């Protein structure tokens, strides 16, 4: 069983899964590592680590600035892999998923899958790589047992969804709104119905992300999904130089999502 499967395997844990997103190297590599370890200690079940990119097209202003802060520190892909390795040394079980843009992943060319595997990375989310363009990328990652996590959006129709599900693994990431990260989440029922629809078509776990900024929203979202993703709010603490607050916030999320129903 892969690390991701273990986390979602409900026989082992009845808990809903808390996924956190931070950007590698924000505000610098050392702090980044500390923040990631704090997140694990406060209840994060999966670490999504953002690969900073010069043109983060799907990000709202908060995460854009995180990318810019990291790039100012000249973070390179090899630094990110090192960071993953260091987390992995301390923690054998926590799944690590790199999230970024296609051009960053392309920079490693055909060494990508192997490098990711060796760094202890479990999965990859590529924001601008839709299903249609992903066949060879997916197959290359598979060879090294790296999951390509699919993003599903409110505009994904069921015909397309079925095609995507045929080549998905790890978990599914439901983007709860039409928009950018950290935007205002308006239609709760629409999210609920869509997640139910996805779950009726697959056994893969579905997590919900984009727009979850507080414990009460997290709790609602977790009530019908397998877990939630929180990024912008955590990064907001980093931007405001109040990283010590991240632990308590994470703990509150973890508590909230496991007190549903």
């Amino acid at each position, binding site marked *: 069983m892969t690390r991701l499967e273990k986390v979602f395997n409900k026989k082992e844990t009845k808990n809903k899964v808390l996924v956190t997103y931070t950007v590698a190297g924000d505000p610098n590599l050392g702090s980044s590592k500390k923040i990631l370890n704090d997140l694990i200690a406060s209840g994060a079940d999966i670490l999504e680590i953002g690969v900073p*990119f*010069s*043109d*983060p*097209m*799907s990000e*709202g*202003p908060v995460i*854009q600035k995180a990318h*810019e802060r990291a*790039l100012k520190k000249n973070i*390179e*892909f090899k630094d990110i892999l090192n960071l993953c390795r260091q987390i992995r040394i301390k923690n054998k079980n926590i799944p690590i998923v790199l999230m970024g*843009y*296609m*051009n*960053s*992943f*392309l*920079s490693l060319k055909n060494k990508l899958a192997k490098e990711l595997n060796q760094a202890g990375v479990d999965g990859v989310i590529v*924001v*601008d*790589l*839709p*299903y*249609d*363009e992903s066949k060879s990328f997916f197959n290359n990652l598979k060879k090294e047992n790296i999951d390509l996590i*699919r*993003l*599903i*959006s*409110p*505009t*994904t*129709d069921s015909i*397309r969804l079925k095609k995507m599900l045929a080549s998905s693994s790890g978990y599914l990431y439901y*983007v709860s709104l*039409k*928009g*950018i990260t950290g*935007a205002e989440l308006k239609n709760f029922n629409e999210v609920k119905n869509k997640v139910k629809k996805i779950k009726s078509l697959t056994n893969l776990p579905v997590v919900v992300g984009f727009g979850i900024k507080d414990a009460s929203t997290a709790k609602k979202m977790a009530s019908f999904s397998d877990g939630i993703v929180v990024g912008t709010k955590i990064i907001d603490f980093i931007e405001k130089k109040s990283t010590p607050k991240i632990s308590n916030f994470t703990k509150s999320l973890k508590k909230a999502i496991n007190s549903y129903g």
Partner: protein
Amino acid sequence: MKYKNLNKYAFPDKEGRFGEFGGKYVSETLITALEELEKVYAKVKKDKSFQEEVIKDLNDFVGRPSPLYFAERWTKKLGGAKIYLKREDLNHTGAHKINNTVGQVLLAKKMGKKRVIAETGAGQHGVATATVAARHGLECIIFMGEEDIERQALNVYRMKLLGAEVCSVDSGTKTLKDAMNEAMRDWVTNVEDTHYIIGSVAGPHPYPEIVRDFNSIVGKELKIQSKKEFGKYPDIIVACVGGGSNAMGIFHPFIKETKTKLVGVEAGGSGVKSGKHAAPLSDGKVGVLHGMKTYLMQDKNGQILSTHSVSAGLDYPGVGPEHAYLRDIGRVEYQSATDQQALKSFHDLTKTEGIMPALETSHALAYVNKIAPKLPKSKTIVINLSGRGDKDMFTVAKEDGMTL
């Protein structure tokens, strides 16, 4: 020459690719919108009444066909090949950009969209979009880099007069590429009621095809005009290339006419070797940005590099995917001209012909300035005079050490 037979040249293919280039590298949310656009466009491409509507607007609103003008004094001065100018500068709003927006706004209406958005660098595409939005009564938002807003104050005011809202983009390098990022962010948020009018043969499929087709009117007219004017197709066609829409518009109808040499001229900035330029076809690597696979200016980690050019319209780190393909198969030759060469040609044409070209266009002129004297008088060169230079007054004055 690497290509063998271009008779069957028919790109993009079903996946929206030109060879390995192009594609649809966008977030999942945008896929549906692109598919809808693809479907509607395929339909209107065959729809006679739609095409007639476009032609009517091109004639009556834009002022087409644009003349093919013999630059007699400049030809004499250079003493070689005959030089003709395809006068896109005489179009309504002063550049080729309007050819595309006239068509795309009709597409937007066909899809029932009430709101149009666009990115702009020099402001020409922003003005062209604001113009058609005003004509059709659509809400219009233009994204423009903070730095370009300063460089192109006149165009910003023009857009505002036309009723558009100009959004200043202060992320990244604060120029065209960041304006495009921000337009994408708006589109993904308002995808249901908004059409994104991309201004170049760039972006995800089907944009490179749509923008090319609407600009192809330039090359189609040239085919008729050149036969009439000098009894054959031109020997050489030259156009400047940023994203590449004016070049693709004039090149595309000639791709199968292999006796006509096609040359695209990129922005060489301070020189391609200096690294300070905007010439990805001369000095870039294949990557993915803004929904397409193409040549990009990037570092070894795939970070997009900041570009440099005296002309805001060419200040873009990527290039349309069809250009990338035409480069690789050797059908089009890509060259570059530096800021200084372009500025010199700007002055030359202004003084010799009484035509003030855009700084973008001046890059194509600079290349012709170099090759025309070496060619016999029997040869004909056509330059796509893609825009007029009024918008560049402040930049040129500044380069010349003057304050206006």
